[in-house]
Every structure is written in structure tokens, then in C-alpha cells.
């Protein structure tokens, strides 16, 4: 019984499909259920969710909870909204990777002076703008990140050498203070967005 509850929690929380074996391995060795018990738990969970709009499915690399296909129109509407804006931190991170590649997360943190969240790197990896090009032979073998073909394509560049040089960037800074205003107005814009969100707040309050 407890095994089933644990398996259900694991399948919901995992960010990837899980095989019976992988589920088994989550348990400490001494209390590890055999594969039959895990399989039985899975069957029972599938049965429990039969009537619900989400269900447990077997895909190539294991079991995962999925939203049922007939809910597709609604889910699409959910994702059709305006995309969020990238944070300043994320922009700096992609800039550092572009100009200083190959770099480790630690290198980026050194340059930026603050810690870099895993989420930020995940976002960039998911967008396929960066990739792991190798691992550095230092303790922990940290991943070395570089930019991808897709990154260049997105910005319509044939190669990284078409990125403005550091020299040119410095010059922009000196001769075109206007461009800095552009960014500032961007920032204000996102602050306005924050205010829009504020407008939602009373709603959240009324939920209580």
C-alpha cells in the first residue's frame, strides 16, 4: 500500500519517464520492493486514474503521467498566451556563454559575481541555445557550455565571429547612450508588467 503511494508521488514529481527499475532504485536497498510489487502498484495507479483527465501512460523510456489527449484544445489555449520576458540575469548568462565559451557554471558565477540558478541554464538548454560541449577535468567534472547552431540561426548570424566584438560593445557604450535608454525603457516595461500582475493580486486574495 505504502509502495503504491510512493510510486505515485515519484511518477508525478519526476521530470522524466521512469522505468520499473528506476522506481525500484529510489528505495534504499534494504526496503526495496521487487519489480512485481512496483508493477502491481503501477497497474493499480493506472486503474485509479482511469476516469480522470490525466493518466499514467507507458512511453518508450518508462511510465509518466500525461494529460489526456482529448484535453488538448484546452491545454493549447493555456500555452497560447504571451510568452514571458527573459530576466536580466538570463541575458547576462547567455551573453557570457556566447563571448566566453566554453565556460562552466562556476566561470559564469565568477564573472557575474552572483550564483547562477540551475533553472536559468535549463531554460537555455531547453531552448537549445546552449549545449554541453565537454566536461572540465577538475573536481566535480563541471559541464562546459557553448552556444549552438540554433542560437546563431535565431540571431541570423553565420558564425560567432559576427557577434560584435568587445571593442565594439565598449564603443556603443561610449557613443550611443541612447541604446542604454532603450534597455531602460525595456526594464520599465517589465516593471509595468509587474504592476499588471499586481492588479491580479486582489483576485488571489479573494480566493482565500
Amino acid at each position, binding site marked *: 500500500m505504502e509502495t503504491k503511494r510512493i510510486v505515485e508521488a515519484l511518477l*508525478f*514529481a519526476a*521530470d522524466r519517464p521512469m522505468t520499473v527499475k528506476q522506481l525500484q532504485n529510489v528505495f534504499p536497498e534494504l526496503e526495496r520492493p521487487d519489480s512485481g510489487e512496483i508493477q502491481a502498484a503501477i497497474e493499480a495507479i493506472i486503474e485509479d486514474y482511469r476516469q480522470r483527465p*490525466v493518466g499514467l*501512460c507507458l512511453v518508450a523510456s518508462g511510465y*509518466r503521467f*500525461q494529460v489526456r489527449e482529448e*484535453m*488538448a484544445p484546452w491545454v*493549447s489555449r493555456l*500555452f*497560447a*498566451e*504571451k*510568452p*514571458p520576458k*527573459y530576466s*536580466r540575469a538570463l*541575458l*547576462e548568462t*547567455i*551573453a*557570457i556563454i*556566447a*563571448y*566566453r*565559451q*566554453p565556460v562552466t557554471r562556476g566561470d559564469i558565477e*565568477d*564573472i*557575474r*559575481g552572483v*550564483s547562477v540558478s540551475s533553472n536559468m541554464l535549463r531554460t537555455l538548454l531547453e*531552448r537549445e541555445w546552449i549545449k554541453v*560541449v*565537454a*566536461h*572540465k*577535468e*577538475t573536481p566535480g*567534472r563541471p559541464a*562546459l557550455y*557553448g*552556444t549552438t547552431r540554433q542560437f546563431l540561426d535565431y*540571431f541570423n548570424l553565420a*558564425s*560567432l*565571429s559576427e*557577434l*560584435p*566584438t568587445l*571593442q565594439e*560593445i*565598449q564603443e*556603443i*557604450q561610449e557613443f550611443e547612450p541612447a541604446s*542604454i535608454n*532603450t*534597455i531602460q525603457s*525595456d526594464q520599465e516595461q517589465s516593471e509595468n508588467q509587474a504592476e499588471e500582475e499586481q492588479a491580479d493580486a486582489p483576485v488571489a486574495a479573494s480566493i482565500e
Partner: protein
Amino acid sequence: MNEVTVEAATETPPLAIVCGQPYQDLPKDLYIPPDALQVFLEAFQGPLDLLLYLIKKQNLDILNIPIAQITRQYIAYIDMMQGLRLELAAEYLVMAALLAEIKSRMLLPRQPEVGEDEEDPRACLIRRLQEYEQMQRAAEEIDRLPRQERDVFTVAADVAMIEIEKRQPDLHLAEIMLAFQDVLRRVEQLSHHHITREPLSVRERMSTILETLKNADNLVFSALFTVSEGRHGVVVSFLAILELCREGLVEIIQSEPFAELRIRNRTAAG
């Protein structure tokens, strides 16, 4: 983020030897955990913090602080902090000065006409102490709250089966450049970081070479050059290999004199 610990860790690696002076027995009353100066420094993050510790250690009633005694101990700690060259020491000095001032004012006979509306300096200090202690408690409570990544895990069902085009944020190249410019400006302010101005194509080539090596144990030196790229391309590749070598990411090997050079990924070499 954690200034104190970091400082302490870099300044005094071994606990038992400080500035060449080994010492084994920690004073019983100085700190409880046997495992380090860092912990001790953690507990002394700020002067008010230190004061609180002293008050607690001596089982003092916070409402009746014997200033002279504390001041003396306090100064001993400041000396120690300065010995460790902690930047914090300056902050501590300010606090010691405040304490000394309070002390001297307490020793002076009160002028009756001022006495009415002027606040007792001890009351002021005590209020600050209490306020800080309140916030320290609050910080501990917040640390105990169930939180994401540790106690709270959000749940999601996969929607990959459903055909959705998830819209991604748009970005202009100028935004990246301006972000980088900001980074550069900050780095310049901090000044101890060096961003060297390398031609970009070298760094790009570095990534390319690493990737090529990912699929092969080692490669012949010449395989990393493309003749059609001309002299410029060759130079770029060469610089990239040197840079990779310098950063310890690849090694150049030669099995015997005059044999062709080979490049090996340090990763693959293990």
C-alpha cells in the same frame, strides 16, 4: 552571499594552526561546536550578533547589560578579527565606539534638565539588540518553513503528446550585447577580474574542437584544420588548440619523435 564563512575559509584553512601558531584546546566558553572557527564566525556575523552571544554566554539579562565588561571582551574580539584581516573588523569598531560612548555617558552625572527627554542610551542599545534578536529568530523560523526544492515538490503531467507550440520569449541581439556590456562594466568596477579581448572566432573554434573530440578518442593534429579556410582559419584553429591546452581541456601528444601530433580530450583521457 556568505561573506563571513568564505572569508574565514580562505584566510584560515586549518583550525588548529593559526598564523603558524598551533593550538589544540579551544577555550570551553568560547564556542561549543568542536568543528571550526568558521562556525564560530558564523555566530558572529555582526557586532550586535556578537553582543547577543556574549550576553547569552554570560547568562546576562538583556535588560541589564554591564557595558564595561562587554566592551573589554568586545575589543579582544576585534583584535582577533583584525588579526584575521576580516573586512568586518571595521564594522565592529563602530560598535565598540558606540559602546564606549554609552559607557562614558553613563558615568557622567546626568544633567537634570536634559535627563527628561533624552533617551537612556542603554535603552536604545537594548532596543536594537532585541529587534535584531527578533529578526534572527524570524530567520530561523523561515528556514524551517517547508520550502520548494527541499520539502515541497510541484507536480506536473506531461503534455508532450499534445501538439502545442509553446511560445518562447523574443530576444534581440542588442539586448544580449547590452547585458554583456553591463557585465563588463561591473567586472571593471570589481577590477580583479580580467576579461581578455580575444577574437571571437577562437572561442567558437574551441567549442567546435571540443565537440569534434567528443566523438573520437584522439585526432591527428592536421585533422583539426580545414585547408579551404585559408591561412586565417588555420591560425584560428591553432590559437584555439593552444588556448584549450592552456586551460587544460585537451592535451597534445606525440608518440615518438617526428611522429604526427595528436590532440586528445583530457576528459576522455580521464
